[in-house]
């Protein structure tokens, strides 16, 4: 699958999502206090929050785009760039950190050639860190999508990631 194909496909899919976004925004018209909830829903829909989405949300809730953008960039849940099909989250909570979470993260970054917050060119993976997910007993822990991997050794990292297309 070529890069172009992935992107075009993603864009085409994005276009189809706007009517759904309008529905969400319509239900919150003129309610700026619901911004964060609306952003959660919008990000669930698109996987990230492109400018156009922020614009529609701002217009609908009665906010300026800059106010929406200020909120989007404050909270680590929200992303302004598209995410990969698979999200890798390395836990850097205290217990994981002490047990080699940083090394695991370094391995992921090196192997994929991207930094935290980044997405591979083929949109296969995105990498993020998370605060403690309460899997301290399994430290260091790594999440790929909703699957948790415990006691992640650097030598095991790629073996795990290869399972996700």
């Amino acid at each position, binding site marked *: 699958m070529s890069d172009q194909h992935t992107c075009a496909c993603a864009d085409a899919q994005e276009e189809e999502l706007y009517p759904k976004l309008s529905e969400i925004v319509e239900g919150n018209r003129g309610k700026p206090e*619901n911004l*964060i*909830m609306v952003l959660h829903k919008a990000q669930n829909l698109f996987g990230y929050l492109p400018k156009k989405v922020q614009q529609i949300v701002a217009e609908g809730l009665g906010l300026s785009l800059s106010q929406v953008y200020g909120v989007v960039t404050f909270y680590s849940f929200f992303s302004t760039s598209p995410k990969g099909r698979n999200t890798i989250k390395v836990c850097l909570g*205290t217990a994981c950190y002490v047990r080699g979470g940083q090394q695991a993260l370094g391995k992921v970054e090196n192997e994929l050639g991207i930094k935290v917050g980044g997405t591979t060119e083929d949109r296969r993976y995105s990498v993020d860190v998370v605060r403690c*997910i*309460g*899997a*301290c007993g*399994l430290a260091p822990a790594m999440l790929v999508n909703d699957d948790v991997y*415990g006691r992640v050794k650097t030598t095991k990292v790629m073996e795990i990631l290869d399972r996700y297309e």
Partner: protein
Amino acid sequence: MNIARSHVLISIDAGTIMAGARGVQAELVEEIKKKGLSGEVAVLETGNLGVTGMGVVLVVYPEGFYYGNVTKEDIPEFVEEQLLKGRLVKRLLLTQAPKRFIIRREKMGLTKEQPRIVLKNCGFINPESIEEYIAAGGYEAASKALTAMTPEEVIGEVKRSALAGRGGAAFPTAAKWEFARKAPGEEKFIICNADEGEPGTFKDRLILEGDPHKLLEGMLIAGYAVGASKGFIYIRGEYALSIERTEKAIADARSYGLLGNTIFDKPFGFDIEVMKGAGAYVCGEETALIESLEGHRGHPRNKPPYPVVSGLWGKPTVVNNVETLANIAEIVRNGANWFKQYGTPKCAGTKVYTILGHVATPGLIETEMGTTLRDIIYDYGGGIGDGKQFKGALVGGAAGAFLGPDMLDVQMDFVNLKEYAAALGSGAILVMNQDTSMVDMLKSVLHFFKHESCGHCAPCRLGTARLVEIVDRIADSEAKADDVDRLLAIASVMKDTSFCPLGQSLYLPVSSCLKYFREEIAGS
């Protein structure tokens, strides 16, 4: 309900779901059916069973056997051996875990049962069933409060119980309610702070997942006492299951008339909404949380005015922690005197801790105020394990305190550990054995603060950045002569001048780490 000879409790919480609990549950039900045991063995879903980091956990009653790290592949053997033949599957048995409930009682000579107030139902009822909660005495307290007590009497009862906030500040809960009750204004709010963010802390999550109605009942009573008709639960965004279960609980409570416009036929209405956080530790600070609820960046507000006078939308607002509110129903139901029999004379009740790190059995515990760190680590946590020595504990997550061996026998409560009150509040106890690098620990703490600083005030925004640079230099053995002193100097100015408790609290881990481990830090 069938009368089964055996119950298998399967713990369904965020941790176990990640470890495959749903798959194990399906396989278990299927296998039981296959073996023709459906009528005899019941599989029950519960919240956290007091064990974490042990994969999928099952408990078999009436025997009380704990199994951990159970996978789908283990199920045929488990059903065959344990359920059909009554033989232990030793390789899966958690030998330490059951002790957390049994040993303690033996040690106390069975004179006094170890109390479970907050976690009373966790692991014993299906958290998704309001019927089970009611069957276990749920909403009795709310009924008592709303039908037989005035709001003032409710506040009076809570005041007599001496319940102090479990979020960290240890502020008397009744006083907070009273301020808000007396504050002028028609509209008032109850906010439950479930934006639990201290690393290693997940007690609130397990309460929400294990017994969400307990929280709702506490909020309902609080709303009645304060004169609020609306409550919000601000739940950390990562806690998907907590959000799901809490929302289901709210919907069930509404359909039972326990939330809504009139409750118990009284002219009092109360409803609750869940707000999902979006990943900002600072929103655990009450005014930042309020800003976030209003749809803004989570920058803290100046105090005064305090939220009890001017909070959400400028209205009187009570912000209580999950654990605080989870105490309310039991206090109202059983009375303040009952509550005060637990804990110390100055600090009543229990405290919920998550115990982690280098202990044999990490997990969730509830114990009386005043229990020593030693008892927590060695009784509940099963000791350090691997024949290693205790080096220290980080109590309270990143904003917590490092405690050295000399603190092992101090009774842990808010009064005795006044300067560590906030740390105690979060309830995270990370135990470190002799092999732990304190530089690494400190580094992790400071990186966390830098990542979570909101950026509003200069001392915290810049102080955290410089502290991280210093600790990184120390870790890389490139420290300058005065770097260790600078750590303390910056942290202490941050304590004095940071806008909100986030920046102020960083002094505690830095100063306590240097108090116990200065030589190690300076020497690296």
